């Protein structure tokens, strides 16, 4: 599939935004400037950005605890996102959600989720809305390898398959659920093999190749509108610990290093340069802009007020 220069530039920018956003987040946590926890997706930017870049604002996604990339991929106001992380009133959730709950309903982002597998069933409902309202859109349900072992995964795939709902179940398989390797949490190599159990199509792709992810999702969008759900497994790897604290006792330095060598952002950059789609200067300019965007977002967030105590009882009910 021929991807426009504009789209490629957009994906490069979004991957950099994700990386730089999370570098800021890591810094804030290390300085004790935010409390709580966060899950960084450094090294996994291609699957999130590639998939979301293939979507319209009117398509839905359900995201995960490791959701910064999904959010940015779907198109986001970085200021509001950073403000939420810092618990400010100007954040996406008015400071009540934090890193694990950023949602942007106007752009079809049904939210990050603190519950592993929390999005499986929600995505079925969202797709049901599309079908019943005859909307020509799709739902992308992101989840991890670990989440594929929740009962809700199986219930959701089964229901989606019999009702032929337009869902792309995208497993971002980073080889671990917290400390547990997939070899110890499932008796198969590929999560995508589970598709057979529901009579749907399952595919395995290179989750560090943003172009492959984008093309797969572009094609699958039409497919799921005709045929019902698909299970796409994007193989990738998280460079950092599971959450802000993690001594990485369950994996080797060599393994981590080998995946750092497969950086999805560097890989896209090389592709864009080698194929003379962008010049090095153009790419540098994009990179510079993303750094500035993040500086601005931090400034906006830090200058925003915390929510007033008066709002504490608001928004429990509609």
């Amino acid at each position: 599939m021929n991807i426009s220069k504009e789209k490629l530039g957009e994906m490069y920018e979004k991957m950099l935004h994700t990386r730089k956003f999370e570098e800021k987040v890591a810094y804030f946590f290390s300085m004790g400037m935010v409390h709580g926890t966060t899950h960084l997706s450094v090294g996994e930017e291609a699957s999130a950005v590639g998939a979301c870049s293939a979507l319209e604002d009117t398509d839905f996604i359900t995201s995960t605890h490791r959701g910064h990339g999904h959010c940015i991929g779907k198109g986001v106001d970085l200021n509001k996102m950073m403000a939420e992380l810092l618990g400010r009133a100007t954040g996406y959730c008015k400071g009540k959600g934090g890193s694990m709950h950023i949602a942007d309903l106007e752009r079809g982002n049904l939210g990050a989720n603190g519950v592993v597998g929390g999005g499986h069933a929600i995505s079925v409902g969202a797709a049901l809305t599309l079908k019943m309202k005859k909307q020509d859109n799709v739902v992308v349900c992101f989840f991890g390898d670990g989440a594929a072992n929740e009962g809700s995964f199986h219930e959701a795939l089964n229901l989606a398959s019999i009702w032929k709902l337009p869902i792309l179940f995208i497993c971002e398989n980073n080889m671990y659920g917290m400390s547990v390797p997939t070899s110890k949490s499932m008796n198969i190599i590929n999560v995508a093999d589970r598709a057979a159990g529901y009579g749907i199509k399952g595919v395995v792709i290179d989750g560090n190749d943003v172009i492959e992810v984008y093309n797969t999702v572009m094609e699958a969008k039409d497919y799921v509108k005709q045929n019902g759900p698909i299970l796409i497994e994007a193989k990738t790897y998280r460079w950092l610990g599971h959450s802000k604290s993690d001594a990485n006792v369950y994996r080797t330095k060599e393994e981590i290093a080998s995946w750092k060598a497969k950086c999805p952002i560097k890989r896209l950059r090389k592709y864009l340069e080698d194929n003379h789609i962008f010049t090095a200067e153009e790419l540098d300019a994009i990179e510079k802009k993303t750094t500035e965007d993040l500086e601005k977002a931090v400034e906006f967030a830090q200058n925003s007020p915390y929510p007033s105590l008066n709002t504490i009882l608001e928004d429990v009910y509609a």
Partner: protein
Amino acid sequence: MREITYAQGIKEAMSEEMRKDENVFLMGEDVGLYGGAFGVSVGMFEEFGEERVRDTPISEAVIAGAAAGAAVTGMRPIAEIMFSDFTTISMDQLVNQAAKMRYMFGGKAKVPMVLRTAGGSGTGAAAQHSQSLEAWFCHVPGLKVVIPSTPYDAKGLLKAAIRDDNPVVFIEQKLLYRKKGMVPEEDYVIELGTADVKREGKDLTIITYGRMVPTCLKVAEDLSKEGIEIEVVDPRTLIPLDKETLIKSAKKTGRVLIVHEAVKTGGFGGEIAAMIADSEAFFYLDAPIKRLCGLDIPIPYCPELEKNAVPTEETIKDAVLSLVK
């Protein structure tokens, strides 16, 4: 006696029981090499091996249900659910299976399992990682419910829970894991259903449990300087509940404040208040029984809001003063 943390107390209870009884084992998410999300089981994998310290997939329904199944057939499992919020996924297995087997089967089955889980707010983890859901379990006959507030209680109560022939939901407090206290080296057990008077006083009784205990004790010390002597009673186990000790204290002081972090509506404080109002203590009361609980909201993320979603030293003080004035 030596000083250890609440988390170490829990680990010691599990390890000692596992050394003594080969039927006892631990399973849960990341409890093995990783040592548990809160580091409670660090070192147990090395001591007992992967057969008895079992990492599970992320599957809370089968963790709870497999514990029930193993328990009814002769093992004594300890199942860990990382955050109490995720026990909601285990609920069918716990409520419809584990809790009911014995009664449904005419008293023929025993389900000696412990479901350990971490509850409470204050860590900035927001709405889905901060709940206090103990009242849910208390509403299910067949389950016992324990919430320890000190390292000593944690160890002694967990040993009792492991030796108990019933399903016990053992709710640990995230904010207490690193708190230290004196714990004996020799074997001891705290019988389930025995409350503990953490501080004696004559003017007012605070009934509280879990992480609110140290907070209430602090308030009691502060108000003591103003001449108000508060008795702090920790039921330690909600089911079975040591009604006698609670009633005795209510009769002694004539004023009762119930404090818990869980949301007020439908919270266990209502049960305690009703139990006291129903008892002979009613005739000794000089003021209405008051409850100070979490607000009826999900736990918010922003630190200032989060802190104020549950009772604080200030609000507890105010509540005490409103009762003794």
